[in-house]
C-alpha cells in the first residue's frame, strides 16, 4: 500500500490512529485502521469490556441488518463476529418483500466480546487502559490525548468512540450515580475539552430493563419463540447455518403490572424532573408506555438469555428507571416471574453527545484536523449504527494519513449513507436509530446485494482481503452470467420481464433455460429480486438517467458554491458539506439530477473554475 508506513517514519508519534473507546464503533475503527496498515491503538477505561452489549444481546433487525451486511461487504468485522457467536437467528419481514427482509441475531454476549478481543489482539492493535480527559490540539490539528493520570499519548489521528460515557449518570429511582453502564465509571473531562475547542454538545437519555436470573424464572409459563427455519448468516463469507435454538421466550404485562406503575409514578425520575435528557421514541420505558397508552391492556415482553456462561436474562420491553422495589413489584405481576430475582435493576442513563452537524461526512470534526468521532457520541443509538461509523472513521483517518481520497457513502448507495447524511444534514432530536423508513431507496439497498454495492469500494480503499475479493469476484461472475440468461426470450417475452410479475419465480424457468440450474442458490435468488424490482427502481431513478455518461466528470475542489443563485439551497448545502469530487458523487450524496445538469453546464463553460476560492483557515487560528 502506497504511503502506508509514512506515519511511522514521522518521529514523535506513538500511533497513526488512536481510538478512544472499545465499544462497537471503537472496534471497527481500530480494525479498519489496522487493516489499512496503520499503527493503531485503543484506549479504554475497561479492557475487560470490549464490544459489550449494555442493552439487549441482539444484532440486526430492520434497517440494522442491512447496515451489518454493508459493514461486512466493505470488509468490517461485525457480521463475522455475529455469525460466530449467534445462538439464534430470526428472519423478520420474510413476507413483506425481499428488500425489507431482515435478519436479527441473538448472540452470546460474552462470546461476542471474547471474539472481538481475540481479533483485536490478532490484528496487532494495542489495547491501553486509561481514561482520556483531553484531546491534545495545536494549530488546528489533533496530535493525541491526555489521560487522567496526566500522561499523554501522541497520535497523528484520534477517533473518539466514547459511546454513552461522556459525563454520564445513571438513574434508578431516587439513586443518581455518576457512572457509565454496568457500574463502570463515567468519562469525565472530555466533554469540557470538546466544549473548549468550540464544539456544541447536547444531552440525551436512554435506558435499559432489569436483568433477572435464569434459575429464578418459571420457564414453563413463558412462550418459546421460534428461530429461522432455514440456514442463514449475516456475512457474505459465512456458510449459512440453521440457528433455531430456543433462547427467546415471550410473555405479556397485565393490568396489575400497569397498576404498579401508575401507583408509583410519582417516584419515576422520568416524570419528576430528575431526568432532563431527550430519550428515543422507539425505546420508551414501561412507565412511558403505561402513561401514554392508558387503554392498552398489555404490552409484550421478550426474554433473551444473554450468554451460556452467564445467569442473566434480558427482558425486552421493560426498560425502566423506577426504584428497585417498584421493579420487583412489577416483575412479580407477570406469570412465570412470581419468584424472579433481579440480578441488575433497569436504569436510565444520561450522557453528552456532539451535535453531529459539526462533523464532516468523513467523520472528521469540522475545524480540527485529524480528530474523528464515531458512534453514540454522534447522537446515534445502536451497536450497528455505531460500528458503521467506526468503520468509516477508521478508514478515513487512514486515508487522511495516506493522503488518499476519503470513503464517503451516499443515500442511494447504502444505509450507512442514509445514516451519514441524516447526521450531517438534519437536526437530530432523539438518539438516531436506523429504520427502513428512513431510506427512500430501500428497494435497492438490500442485505442480499450489499456485496455487489460495496465490496468494490472496500477493495479500493484496501479493506477487502484477497480471500473475500476472490469470493466476491466469483459471485459477481455468476450474477453476470445469470443476468445474461434472463435476457433470453421464451414464450411471452424475455425472462427478466416475465419475472416482473409477483407470481413468476426463477424456479419456473430453470428447466426452460440451459445453465440457469447451475447457478448457486443465492445468485438465483438475487437475479430474481433484481428483475422483480427493476421497474420500481428505474421509476425512482428516472430523472438521473440523463447523467449516466457524465458520472466520472471531475468537479474542482473549493468551489464557492454559495455564489451560485441558479442552484437550490439544498443542493448548495450538500455541495459545501460533501465537496463531491465528481458528478457521480454529487448525485450519490443527494444533489438533484436537474441541479447536477446545471453544474455540468457550468463545468463545460469554465464557470466553475472561476469560482474556486482558497481553502478556509481551520478552527482556532
Amino acid at each position: 500500500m502506497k504511503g502506508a508506513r509514512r506515519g511511522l517514519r514521522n518521529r514523535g508519534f506513538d500511533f497513526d490512529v488512536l481510538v478512544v473507546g472499545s465499544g462497537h464503533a471503537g472496534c471497527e475503527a481500530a480494525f479498519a485502521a489496522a487493516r489499512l496498515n496503520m499503527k493503531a491503538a485503543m484506549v479504554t477505561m475497561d479492557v475487560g469490556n470490549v464490544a459489550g452489549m449494555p442493552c439487549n444481546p441482539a444484532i440486526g433487525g430492520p434497517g440494522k441488518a442491512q447496515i451489518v451486511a454493508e459493514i461486512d461487504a466493505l470488509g468490517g468485522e461485525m457480521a463475522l463476529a455475529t455469525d460466530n457467536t449467534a445462538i439464534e437467528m430470526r428472519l423478520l419481514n420474510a413476507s413483506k418483500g425481499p428488500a425489507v427482509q431482515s435478519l436479527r441475531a441473538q448472540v452470546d454476549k460474552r462470546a461476542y466480546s471474547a471474539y472481538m478481543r481475540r481479533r483485536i489482539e490478532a490484528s496487532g492493535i494495542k489495547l491501553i487502559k486509561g481514561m482520556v480527559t483531553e484531546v491534545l490540539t495545536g494549530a488546528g490539528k489533533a496530535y493525541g490525548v491526555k489521560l487522567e493520570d496526566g500522561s499523554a499519548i501522541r497520535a497523528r489521528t484520534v477517533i473518539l468512540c466514547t459511546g454513552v460515557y461522556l459525563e454520564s449518570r445513571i438513574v434508578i429511582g431516587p439513586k443518581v450515580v455518576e457512572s457509565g453502564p454496568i457500574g463502570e465509571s463515567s468519562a469525565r473531562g472530555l466533554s469540557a475539552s470538546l466544549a473548549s475547542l468550540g464544539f456544541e454538545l447536547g444531552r440525551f437519555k436512554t435506558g435499559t430493563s432489569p436483568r433477572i436470573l435464569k434459575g429464578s424464572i418459571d420457564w414453563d409459563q413463558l412462550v418459546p419463540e421460534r428461530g429461522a427455519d432455514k440456514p442463514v448468516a449475516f456475512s457474505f463469507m459465512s456458510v449459512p447455518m440453521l440457528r433455531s435454538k430456543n433462547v427467546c421466550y415471550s410473555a405479556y404485562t397485565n393490568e396489575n403490572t400497569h397498576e404498579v406503575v401508575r401507583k408509583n409514578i410519582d417516584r419515576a425520575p422520568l416524570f419528576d424532573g430528575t431526568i432532563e435528557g431527550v430519550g428515543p421514541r422507539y425505546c420508551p420505558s414501561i412507565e412511558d408506555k403505561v402513561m401514554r397508552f392508558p387503554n392498552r391492556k398489555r404490552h409484550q415482553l421478550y426474554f433473551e438469555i444473554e450468554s451460556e456462561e452467564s445467569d442473566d436474562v434480558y427482558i425486552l420491553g421493560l426498560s425502566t428507571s423506577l426504584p428497585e422495589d417498584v421493579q420487583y413489584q412489577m416483575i412479580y405481576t407477570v406469570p412465570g416471574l412470581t419468584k424472579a430475582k433481579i440480578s441488575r435493576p433497569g436504569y436510565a442513563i444520561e450522557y453528552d453527545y456532539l451535535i453531529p452537524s459539526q462533523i464532516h461526512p468523513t467523520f472528521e470534526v469540522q475545524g480540527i484536523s485529524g480528530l474523528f468521532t464515531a458512534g453514540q457520541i454522534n447522537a446515534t443509538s445502536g451497536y450497528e449504527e455505531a460500528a458503521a461509523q467506526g468503520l468509516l472513521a477508521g478508514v478515513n483517518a487512514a486515508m487522511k494519513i495516506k493522503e488518499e481520497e476519503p470513503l464517503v457513502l451516499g443515500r442511494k448507495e447504502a444505509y450507512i449513507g442514509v445514516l451519514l447524511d441524516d447526521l450531517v444534514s438534519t437536526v437530530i432530536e432523539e438518539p438516531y436509530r436506523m429504520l427502513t423508513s428512513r431510506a427512500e431507496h430501500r428497494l435497492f439497498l438490500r442485505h442480499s446485494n450489499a456485496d455487489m454495492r460495496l465490496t468494490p469500494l472496500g477493495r479500493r480503499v484496501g479493506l477487502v482481503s484477497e480471500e473475500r475479493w476472490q469470493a466476491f469476484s466469483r459471485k459477481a461472475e455468476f450474477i453476470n452470467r445469470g443476468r445474461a440468461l434472463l435476457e433470453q426470450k421464451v414464450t411471452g417475452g424475455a425472462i427478466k420481464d416475465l419475472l416482473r410479475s409477483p407470481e413468476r419465480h426463477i424456479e419456473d424457468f430453470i428447466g426452460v433455460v440451459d445453465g440457469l440450474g447451475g447457478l448457486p442458490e443465492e445468485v438465483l435468488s438475487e437475479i430474481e429480486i433484481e428483475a422483480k424490482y427493476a421497474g420500481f427502481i428505474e421509476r425512482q431513478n428516472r430523472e438521473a438517467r440523463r447523467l449516466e455518461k457524465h458520472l466520472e466528470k471531475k468537479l474542482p475542489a473549493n468551489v464557492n458554491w454559495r455564489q451560485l443563485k441558479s442552484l437550490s439551497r439544498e443542493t448548495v448545502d450538500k455541495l459545501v458539506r460533501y465537496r463531491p469530487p465528481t458528478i457521480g458523487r454529487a448525485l450519490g450524496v443527494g444533489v438533484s439530477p436537474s441541479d447536477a445538469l446545471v453544474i455540468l453546464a457550468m463545468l463545460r463553460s469554465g464557470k466553475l473554475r472561476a469560482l474556486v476560492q482558497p481553502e478556509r483557515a481551520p478552527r482556532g487560528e
Partner: protein
Amino acid sequence: MGSSQGWFVDTVTDTIGAIASPVGTGGIAIVRLSGADALRIAGRMIRLKRRGSVPAMKSWSMALADVLDMGSGRVVDECIVLAMRAPRSYTGEDVVEIQCHGGVVVAEKVLSLAFRLGTRPALPGEFTKRAFINGRITLDEAEAVLDIVTSASEESLFQAGRRLKGELGSMVEKWETQIVDLLALLQGSIDFPETIEADKSDIQDLLAGLSHDIGAVLERAPLGLALSQGVEVCLVGRPNVGKSSLFNALLARERAIVTDIPGTTRDVLREPTEWYGLPVALLDTAGLRETEEVVEALGVERAQTAAVESNVILYVLDDTQGIYDEDVQWLSKWQNRNCLAVVTKVDLMKQQVDLKLLRDICQDRWVRASGATGFGIEGLKKKVQSMFASLGDPEALAPGSARQVDCLGRALGEIQRALGYLNQGWTDDVIVLALEEAAGSLMELTGKKVSGETLDRIFSRFCVGK
C-alpha cells in the same frame, strides 16, 4: 466508484410545461412545453386547421389550430401553435408554444391537458435552467432571469398554498392523514415487526374510497380552474337587442361600442369584474344570426362557443321587439345550463316580451333591466352571485390551479398504482413505495415531508420499542 453506480441505466428527458405569459394580463396567454416529448404531446392535443400535425411542423413555423379535450372531443380553444426544434429554441430542446385566445383561464385548461399527457409542471425558472444547461444562454443571463423568477414564484407559491383552504383544504388534509396512517401501519409493521401487526383487511376499501374521493374532486377541476380565475358570464342574443349596452352597464364603463346598427359587435370581448365578492369574467359577443358576411359569421360562431363554454349565459331579449322563434330555440337549447334571460330596454316601456311565454320557458330564471338607465343591473349581478353563493367559497370547492390539479392527479395515480399492486399480490415494500409517492404529491400542497410525518405517526399511534 463505477460499479456502485451501475444503476443509472438509460437516457430520457422529461417534458415540462407552464403558462409562459405573465398572469393577469388578459388577452393572449401562452402555454409553453419543452422537452423531448413536447412535439408529440402537443400533437395529441392539437389539431391543425390546415393539413399536417404538430410533430411534422417545421422548426420556427406557426399554424392555426384547435386545442381538443381528448376526453370529450370538444374544442377547448382556437390557438396559434409555434413549434421550435432542438437545439434552435429558447431552452435548446424541442419547444411548443400554444397561444390561447381565451386568456389565462383557457391556458390553464390547455396546460392541464398537457399534464394529463405526461408533461410535468415546470419548476420556477426551469425553462431558463434548461436554456443554460443546453448552452443557449450564459450564466449571467440565466441568473438575471432566475432572480426575478425566484421572487415571483415565492409569491405565487404562497398564493397556491393560500388557495388551498376551506372544504378542499380540509379534504386534502383528510386524505393525507389517511395515507400517512396507512404508511405508519405498513412501514411500522416493517420497522417494528415484533410490536406492530398490519391488519390489511381494510386497506383495499380505504384505497378505493380515497381513489373515488380524489377522483370526484378532480372532476370538478375545470369548474375550479374557471372559478379561481372568475366565473365566465356570457352575454348572447340576436343582433341589436342591447347586449353591449348591458355589458357596459354591468362594468360601469364604456368598454364596448354601441350603435343602432345590428351586427356591431364582432369579436368576443372579455373583461374581469367582481359582483358581490364573486370574481367574474364578463363576455360580450356578436349577435346571433345567419349571415353571409365572413367576419360576422366567424363572430357568430365564436359567440356560440363562448356561450357553451361559459359558466353562466345571459340571454338578452329586447322588450321593444318581443320573443322571436329563434329566441325560443336558443333558450330551450341552453335551458339546462346556467342560463338567465334578461329582458332589456324596459325603460322604453314597450312591453313586447310576452312574460307568460317567458315563464313557460325559463320559470323564474329571468330579470328585467335597462342598459340605458341602469335599472335592474344590481339585481342581475346579485342573481348571478347567488347562483354560486350556494356552492360556497369558489376557491374552497375545487382545485384552482393547474399545479393543484397536477398534484391531486399524481396522488390519484399513485393510489391506483398501490391498489393495483395490492390486487396483483405485490409485497408491502412495493405498496409502501406507491403510497409514499401519493403522500408526497399531496404534501406538495401542504408543505410537509413524507418520512418525518410517517415516523411521527408510527410513534404517536403505536406503542413500539424495547
